[in-house]
């Protein structure tokens, strides 16, 4: 298992390099100097600008600039925010936990919905429950997250006054009330993301379980007299989860997209809303760093998927 993990980690390095290359290419191809905000400012005299250009190495060959940028990124030296006047890595470490909590709990919610519903409808295909679940799943992943967010605000905040629609980073209270208020303000963003993911995962789970449940070994398990519940949970679901994990890992970039939108709607102070605000404020170092963090998160989740494979199907780990 350790060797398998190490190998997967080594495979992740080229993709990280590839992503950093893509990011840097975008930056290099972009017209003008996105990093040259200071250098192209008309209030800065040309000599100073030239000195700055030389200092930051804008006139060096592209590969050298890429190497320098990569080394700086790896050292955690992500530059200085033009707008907030603090180091970018500090800004990101402040914002990252909120994003991870919101995304993490929404994924758990999605799993809690998708697994039972998907398995239950696959064990009774084309029943009334299956048809209703299928239609609801279709509606669920056809509703864009930004529209669901607005609908939730309209219903739960404006008409019912149940939940606050602005997420506050610092609530100023302690103890149990803090947990309760955190829960209340996180409920809508988590639900928006979780329901969207849950809807598409339900369909993955259903079709994967349908593929497995007809196989001979399931019939064998039933013939041995194992209870239906045990057959489904121990023999069917574990094997059906393998393709589901693939699809879930592949849809991770989409999840982060949804997270950016939700953070923007509910004003969650995470890295998604940091990205939007820095784009609107032309704060290039922050934009680059946040995009890079998102890329790292995607790769991290792909790694997690690989570890899950090894656990679900030991044959993969020993190959």
């Amino acid at each position: 298992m350790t060797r398998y993990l190490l190998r997967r980690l080594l495979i992740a390095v080229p993709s990280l390099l590839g992503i950093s290359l893509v990011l840097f290419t975008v930056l290099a191809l972009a017209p003008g100097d996105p990093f040259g905000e200071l250098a192209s400012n008309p209030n800065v005299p040309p000599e100073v600008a030239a000195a700055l250009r030389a200092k930051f190495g804008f006139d060096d060959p592209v590969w050298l600039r890429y190497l320098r940028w990569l080394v700086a990124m790896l050292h955690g030296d992500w530059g200085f925010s033009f707008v907030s006047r603090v180091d970018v890595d500090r800004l990101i470490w402040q914002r990252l936990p909120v994003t991870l909590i919101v995304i993490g709990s929404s994924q758990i919610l999605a799993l809690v919905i998708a697994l039972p519903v998907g398995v239950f409808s696959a064990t009774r295909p084309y029943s009334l429950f299956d048809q209703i679940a299928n239609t609801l799943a279709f509606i669920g992943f056809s509703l864009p997250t930004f529209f669901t967010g607005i609908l939730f605000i309209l219903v739960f905040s404006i008409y019912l006054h149940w939940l606050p629609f602005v997420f506050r980073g610092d609530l100023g209270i302690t103890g149990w009330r803090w947990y309760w208020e955190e829960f209340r303000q996180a409920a809508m963003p988590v639900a928006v993301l979780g329901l969207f993911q849950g809807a598409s995962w339900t369909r993955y789970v259903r079709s994967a379980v349908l593929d497995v449940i007809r196989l001979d070994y399931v019939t064998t398990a039933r013939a041995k007299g194992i209870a239906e519940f045990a057959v489904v949970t121990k023999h069917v679901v574990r094997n059906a989860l393998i393709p589901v994990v693939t699809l879930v890992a592949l849809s991770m970039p989409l999840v982060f997209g949804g997270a950016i939108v939700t953070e923007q709607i509910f004003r969650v102070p995470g890295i998604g809303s940091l990205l939007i605000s820095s784009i609107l404020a032309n704060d290039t170092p922050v934009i680059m760093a946040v995009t890079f963090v998102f890329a790292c998160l995607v790769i991290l989740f792909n790694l997690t998927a690989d570890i899950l494979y090894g656990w679900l199907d030991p044959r993969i780990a020993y190959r």
Partner: protein
Amino acid sequence: MAGSTLASPTADAAPLGSASRARYVSPARDTWRRFRRHRLAVAGLAVLILMMVAVALGPLVWRVPINDIDFNAQLAGPSWAHPLGTDDLGQDVLARMLYGGRISLAVGLAAMLVAVVVGTIVGALAGISRGSVDTALMWLTDLFLSLPQLPLLLLLIYLFRDPLKQLVGPELGVFLLIVVVIGGFRWMQVARLVRAQFLSLREKEFVEAARALGATKWRQVVRHILPNSLGPVIVAGTVDVAAAIIAESTLSFLGLGFPPDIPTWGRILFDAKDTLDIAPHWALFAGAAIFLAVLSINFVGDGLRDALDPRKVM
């Protein structure tokens, strides 16, 4: 079932020959016959056609200008003069939605075309050539699949929006940029599907027959393999239209898509979200339009998947 062949010529071969010619069903007709059984897909198709007709002909019938500012009718609810109400400047929401729908649907279709063309070319190249080309192209596909799409979309639009605006004008510039960028992030699924189809089809007897008859590689691909691998591509392309519409609305909703004078559905939602408490109709109609379009396209895609899946016997 149409297309089945008898193992050996039998006594009633002659009448069968004439009868089978009369019963010949073209692939398109056969697909339609299967598609019709999916009731929700047919409903989706009907809604979709209705929406397309509405945005194509609607502005000719509903002749209220989209930028007619009327401060006496700010944020008014639905009425006879304004069936879908007005926005914060008293502009008619129906007229704006009909106009914006054109752009939203056009972006969806154009981005799908970009994705399908790029995906088919990459997938076909990878599928027909073995070895290093295949490996390199598939590595590229996997790399693109693991890119964080929305952040990169936002980054690209942020970096390239102004230069393109100066180059080809604000409307066309943003349209081209959004279409190319959205399409450029959605071709991977198509490429994988096409490659998988190519890998199995290129070993089939009919391709071998074409090869034996001396068909060039180009002819084998274009005349024999590609037409037979189109089924999954059509399904993926349909779903891509929905995804592209969502992507464009997302960009506009974040304020980074089309400029405010081009009211796409996402842009209307972006403008409407700040007055949600006093004028919910403004946001609801635009959101419902996106939702309805995406839902119908997804149902049509599901129906096509059922209809084009050769494993499924109906």
